[in-house]
């Protein structure tokens, strides 16, 4: 007989952190848009499920040039933020899904079986976001890039980033009732003129495009260099070959948009 899932519904961030513990055996559910279909389609029931819908982890703060977004914030609430995050959020699924799916779920979900996940990872990597999380060892704040590598064992509390001087987003979509993102590139220029680029739609999670950043002054060279920064995969939306051919195009588009956004 299958053991029943212990469902935990915290009402404060502290309670959520305590119930998460070191994360062993805990499946975190934000909006449920990924976990619920998995369960419907036969995924094993988790030993423990932590529902964050009432944990007080939702909300967007903008103060002193810093944006802070709670993990349980619906993606719909990010649509009005500056590029690259706002346009990236607007490109996720459809309005009903965006109102239910959360930032934390988008950043922390495992790699999709037949389509890439984690659209917001690219925008937030380009924004050099910091992730605040709890888990084994207590609370930590670290670059999103480091957090993504160990996100399975952490409970995200929020992400924060400095508002960019300019931002840009370009995506290749697969039309459906809502759009699936085949591949996307985000770019941000900081107040000091530094350009950061990142991509999603790759094998695994989103990645910074450091070689492309180093060549950013020459759009053609940057596009060609980006392919060396990433690992591309085949899935139901596109082949790795197709992604390799289109990644340079998206990089060039983002760099052009960044130049135009003076």
């Amino acid at each position, binding site marked *: 007989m299958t053991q029943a899932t212990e*469902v935990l519904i915290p009402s404060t961030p502290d309670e959520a952190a305590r119930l998460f513990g070191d994360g062993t055996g805990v499946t975190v*559910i934000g909006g449920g848009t990924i976990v619920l279909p998995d369960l419907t389609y036969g995924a094993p029931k988790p030993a423990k*499920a932590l*529902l964050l819908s009432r944990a007080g982890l939702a909300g967007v703060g903008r103060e002193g040039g810093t944006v802070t977004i709670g993990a349980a914030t619906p993606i719909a609430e990010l649509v009005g933020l500056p590029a690259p995050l706002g346009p990236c959020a607007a490109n996720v*699924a459809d309005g*009903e*899904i965006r109102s*239910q799916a959360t930032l934390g779920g988008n950043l922390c979900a495992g790699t999709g079986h037949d389509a890439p996940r984690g659209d917001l990872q690219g925008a937030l990597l380009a924004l050099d976001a910091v992730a605040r999380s709890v888990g084994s060892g207590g609370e930590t704040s670290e670059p999103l890039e480091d957090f993504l590598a160990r996100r399975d064992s952490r409970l995200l509390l929020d992400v924060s980033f400095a508002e960019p001087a300019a931002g840009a987003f370009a995506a290749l979509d697969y039309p459906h009732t809502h759009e699936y993102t085949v591949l996307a590139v985000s770019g941000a220029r900081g107040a000091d003129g530094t350009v950061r680029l990142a991509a999603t739609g790759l094998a695994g999670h989103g990645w910074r495009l450091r070689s492309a950043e180093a060549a950013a002054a020459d759009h053609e060279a940057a596009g060609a260099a980006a392919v060396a920064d990433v690992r591309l995969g085949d899935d139901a939306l596109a082949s790795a070959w197709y992604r390799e051919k289109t990644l340079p195009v998206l990089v060039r588009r983002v760099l052009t948009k960044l130049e135009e956004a003076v």
Partner: protein
Amino acid sequence: MNLTVNGVAHEIESGPLTTLLDVLREELGITSPKAGCEQGGCGACTVVIDGQPRRSCLTAVGSVDGAAVTTVEGLGTPEHLSPIQQAFTHHYAAQCGFCTSGMMMAAQAYVDGGGTDDREAIQHALGGHVCRCTGYVKIIDAVAAAARGDSFDMTVTAAGTAMTNLGGVA
């Protein structure tokens, strides 16, 4: 757990990870929300939760404990169709009808939220809903008419064809 569905309070016995779709259909016997793709891709299961259109197949009932849920059963009756139902009927906005429940609930939330008859805005609001009969033009016609507050002569369709078996009331 408790839900108020179409104005009626229910104590829910299903576990908190049960989808709201299953609770509505299997526990409460409310069958207008359809189990289409059951992964958020079709919109046939959309209901209105606390005023917002949501996919019931993606919603753990434990996350909406205490909420007010509206389904098509809460819109009108066969004798007294709601304005959205009249619009869909008059504009012949259903063919096979499988997507109609979700379409109407999304349309109801759109109109209740102050949506206008702007066709692009309607397409955006209904963007997550698929009609495999591809009857989108008439669906958008119906939502635009409801958004304008049109009144409907329920003895004829918008095309002027006499209605015989659509359940319309003169």
